[in-house]
């Protein structure tokens, strides 16, 4: 039994990727849950909002790179992020002003807003492809690894290596910073508290003199930032292709639902639950079992619960389980 090597394999193929993916999902699910809690609808356009934000950041990155700027070991995209966020914020405010506001003023049924958000999703999807094309865009530059597998093996003398990519480290760090900022904002500032109050009891918030339009604008600004950061981190880590963000929609919703729609802490926890579930269920455990079990009972197959083609089934199953057994989610969001 070689526990150390088993742990390293686990860390390299399960823990580190799941932490990274979980951070990305957490940031994305935060955007979904805020829109649900404050604006009271499930925003089907969120995945493509992330695509838009990433696209804006990529364009800004190219601009910066053409000016000869870079960020040293870190990706230039981090410098371009603020521009991406601003662009996305303007886009979201425009869609709100032109599209959502009408239905909000009419106090339309939630399902109407969902359908409308689906229309916005469709449009945004086409717009992103129109502007940047449908193909792959790899925009990560700078150092690729914080520590490569080979360096690790040399340092520790183990036979298994642990590689940590720069993008993975950045993702987790950025996520921590963003979440901390968000919670500080929501819990310690007057505006943040007004958002929570509006989400909690809209009529009472209006009676307290809270300006609903201001709440809406601030919400969209935060959502723009979250979506752009989440999308950019995901695109840096993997690659940018417009249609993959639509595929993130289901894991994002699963994460938000499992945590409790409308509950920010729940969205974060949900993000990690979905990420870890997806990675562990589609991972081939043979290597780890090989290190931990006696040789004669190690199974011959790959020991993979579900093939990676069925990644979508993981978040879908989580969603179904939550809906069947506890629709309000872990942290009691607003389900009805």
């Amino acid at each position, binding site marked *: 039994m070689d526990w150390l090597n088993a742990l390293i394999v686990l860390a390299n193929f399960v823990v580190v990727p799941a932490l990274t993916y979980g951070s990305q999902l957490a940031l994305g699910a935060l955007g979904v849950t805020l829109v649900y809690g404050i604006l009271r609808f499930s925003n089907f356009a969120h995945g493509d909002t992330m695509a838009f934000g990433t696209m804006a950041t990529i364009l800004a990155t190219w601009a910066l790179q053409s000016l000869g700027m870079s960020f040293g070991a870190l990706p230039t995209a981090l410098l371009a992020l603020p521009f991406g966020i601003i662009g996305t914020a303007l886009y979201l405010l425009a869609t709100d002003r032109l599209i959502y506001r009408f239905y909000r003023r009419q106090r339309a049924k939630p399902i109407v807003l969902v359908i409308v958000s689906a229309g916005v999703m469709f449009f945004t999807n086409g717009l992103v492809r129109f502007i940047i094309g449908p193909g792959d865009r790899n925009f990560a530059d700078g150092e690729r690894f914080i520590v490569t597998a080979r360096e690790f093996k040399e340092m520790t003398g183990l036979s298994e290596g642990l590689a940590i990519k720069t993008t993975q480290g950045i993702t987790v760090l950025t996520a921590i910073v963003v979440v901390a900022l968000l919670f500080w904002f929501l819990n310690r500032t*007057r505006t943040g*508290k*007004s958002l*929570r*109050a509006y989400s*909690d*009891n809209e*009529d*009472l*918030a*209006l*009676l*307290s*003199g*809270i300006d609903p339009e201001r709440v809406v604008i601030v919400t969209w600004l935060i959502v723009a930032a979250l979506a752009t950061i989440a999308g950019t981190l995901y695109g840096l880590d993997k690659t940018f292709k417009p249609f993959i963000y639509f595929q993130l929609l289901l894991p994002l919703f699963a994460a938000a639902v499992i945590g409790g729609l409308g509950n920010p802490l729940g969205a974060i926890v949900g993000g990690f639950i979905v990420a870890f579930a997806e990675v562990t269920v589609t991972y081939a455990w043979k290597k780890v079992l090989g290190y931990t079990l006696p040789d004669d009972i190690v199974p011959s197959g790959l020991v993979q619960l579900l093939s990676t083609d069925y990644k979508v089934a993981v978040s879908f199953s989580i969603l179904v389980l939550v809906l069947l057994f506890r629709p309000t989610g872990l942290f009691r969001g607003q389900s009805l």
Partner: protein
Amino acid sequence: MSEPFLVGENLTGGYGSADILHGCTIAVDKGEIAVIVGPNGAGKSTAMKALFGMLVLRKGGVRLEGRSIDELSPSQRVMNGMGFVPQTSNVFPSMTVEENLEMGAFIRRDDCNDTMTEVFDLFPILKEKRKQPAGQLSGGQRQQVAVGRALMTRPKALMLDEPTAGVSPIVMDELFDRIIEVAAMGIPILMVEQNARQALAIADHGYVLVQGRNAFSGSGAALLADDEVRKSFLGG
């Protein structure tokens, strides 16, 4: 006689095409407690909502400090000094007691700590539970949070819609004690109440509404002593 501080005169209107109020008049003066009682469906809550601007009035108007406020929306009336405590859904359940009070003072730009201290003096239990989410408190305590929240704006007039609905008699007594203390601070209080006997006992003025009309008006004591009122609405 000078005009009462807050008056809704000859109120006639309803939510849709049918009128619920038919020319009823409600008034309250500084430092006074005025109570609206009556049978179910008499239009008590509706009258209060009319004063607050949540109803379309066909006839009649509302005046605060002598000035008409008919054109103002409910939010604007709050900013002009009217405090309103709805009957239900009157706290922010996921926010702490302290945050609820902060939200109450949202429109105030100045430091509201003094006011919060006053509210805590008035409702000591709230100080004890200041960090607890309001949704976890008992019914009576929640009502105190709701009233405290409304007081945070330093209102010129306070309106309460059935503040003792669903609370035990002991809590009701306590609530009424507090309300008397608030009135003693000079704030006129207008209250709709289902527990007519106890409410009239603390009232300076009472209005008995029947089918949207003033059926009886007078001081609380007078109404309690009136045989007709006692027989019809107070169960003898």
